[in-house]
């Protein structure tokens, strides 16, 4: 936990510096960091607000590190592991599939990805009956289709499964 606290503060610190850089320091067409400056008669430039916010974020990271050195915050005193075995396994079994879900949307569409994810979670992770897993994995896309594509007219991505939906479009849209 102690090391994680320091590493996290450093990562967030680097992120803050990057945001400061991005908020205008990276542009030098009109003089270095023009958007960050206060323009007389025009008020602050477009990068002024994010620049100083990111600056405050950086200061906070420094503050967290100072607390870390003084062992003032609970995580900086804790000897516990940052993420125990259960946590790592959970991220592999739950977090990774969530990322996989989003990754698959491009290929098999929202509905295909949803079906695979639900089936995996309920049947393999949840060890529920096959019938229940199939019911959820097949029922959810049907409900979602009628709610989003049909009722709200928000077309969810279909990926390579698009041809399968054409007859449905003809009926419902």
């Amino acid at each position, binding site marked *: 936990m102690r090391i994680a606290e320091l590493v996290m503060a450093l990562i967030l610190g680097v992120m803050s510096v990057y945001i400061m850089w991005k908020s205008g320091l990276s542009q030098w067409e009109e003089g270095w960091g023009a958007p960050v400056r206060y323009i007389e008669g025009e*008020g602050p430039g477009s990068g002024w607000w994010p620049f100083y916010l990111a600056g405050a974020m950086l200061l906070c990271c420094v503050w*967290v590190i100072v607390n870390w050195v003084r062992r003032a915050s609970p995580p900086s005193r804790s000897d516990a592991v940052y993420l125990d075995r259960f946590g790592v396994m959970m991220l592999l079994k739950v977090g990774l599939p*969530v990322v996989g879900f989003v990754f698959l949307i491009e290929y098999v569409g*929202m509905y295909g990805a949803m079906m695979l994810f639900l089936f995996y979670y*309920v049947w393999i992770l949840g060890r529920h009956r096959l019938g229940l897993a199939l019911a959820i994995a097949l029922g959810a896309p049907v409900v979602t289709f009628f709610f989003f594509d049909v009722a*709200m007219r928000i077309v969810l991505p279909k990926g390579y499964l698009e041809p399968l939906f054409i007859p449905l479009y003809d009926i419902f849209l």
Partner: protein
Amino acid sequence: MDVLPLLFDGIATALSPAILGLTFLGVVIGLFVGAMPGLGSVNGVAILLPATFLIQQSFSDPNDGTAAAMIFLAAIYYGAMYGGAISSITLGIPGASTAVATTFDGRPLALRGDANQALVTAAIASFVGGSIANIFFTGFAPPLASVALSFGPPEIFALMLLAFATFVGLGGDDIPKTIFSICFGLTMAAVGFDQISGEPRLIFFDVIGFMHGINFLVLAIGVYGIGEMLWTIYTTREKITMTDAQISFAGVMRATGRTFTRGWKGMSIGSGLGFFVGILPAAGATPGSLMSYGIAKMTASKPEEFGKGAIDGVAAPEAANNSASTGAMLPMLTLGIPGSPTTAVLLGGMVIWGLTPGPRLFTDQPEFVWPLIGSFYVANLISLIVNLAFIPLFLWMLRMPFTILAPIIFTLSIVGGFAATQDMHDVWLMVFFGLGAFFLRILDYPLAPAVLAIVLGPIAEPTLRQSLLLSDGDPMIFVERPIAGPITIIAIILILLPVFKFFWARRHGKTETAS
């Protein structure tokens, strides 16, 4: 302004069949998300906000549609305050953070075989808290809104500052981490095109997806949908035991009687204190219920009974969390400053539906405001009835294995995140925020300030810049104006409060301040 006719009109609108149906649906969903461990009102509201576009579109009059959409979400908020108690009592884990204090005495009561009493007390106290808060709300909102009409950019920015300062001063979390969270949320709100100069900014790694900015829902669903689910699985370890309750009509009546005889004190403390704590930005229902519990215990004739199943100990936090949730609506509707993460999401929703939050809402959009206020009264009553009538059903639903609920929530989050902006870039960003929220949470980084900040960012930045334009760049404008001045000074005191506490503790020879 005469309030009562407007209120009765509002209640009449809220009682029209379509709106009543939506309120009922919202309350049931709210009770469910509130009761489910790991899900609270904010999760329900954030995940279901994209669905309200359907509600808005299905009304022929756009004003009615907007009011209906808002009423639906407000009903979820309301129902969740009732529902949180159900799992606090029967499972011993709070269904939502707002119901944490309910576990202190509700769980011992249930373990003693009196779950029935605890559930009924929670429901009755919630109803009383909600009703008293509604009356306060109706009384305070119109005058506050008319005062706020004279506010200019410096006053509004000073209020924003106050909202963030309460997080720092009263939030109780690690201070640098809280400030980091606020600034992070504000920075994320600044991504995309600058509203004033029209220049693109913060296009990270030159990815085009950042050009349209970061929708607050992407952060809210990431944090409260994906991050929260991971966190719940991680902390509960999927091990939950449940105490059953047998509900009968006679039992409910007996328990109601006992609630009033032994819980009146807790209820009155909770209702009053909860409302005023709820008004404070950043405080909201969770600290409101904890404080009410503490004060009810301090003033009790037998404080030793607290923690062992005191009826007052259930009544105080439950009255407070309902009262506070209404209180949190007050600054949200009158000033455009949300008092809790849930109201922050509601405020974001109002912007999406095309309303301009702020004091003008009361004068410009009475057909939106009054039905909403009317619906508070209606939703409160529906919540009580549904809660008492369907306790067995909720107990049955709580037996739903987490391995079925969790994938459904993940799926709803991803579909909802896509529906909000219809851009895969935002879905990826949402997953990134969700995982980031999980890792940060282990290290005690508070995330609610970031969600509040991303909603307030688009108001805070222009008001700050306009104020500085008014004063030619002199920041003293926030101190010198008659209304902005005191607000800014209170905000500064609140920010410095932890510093005072630190020196106070040091002078008294304590190195640790009690939490």
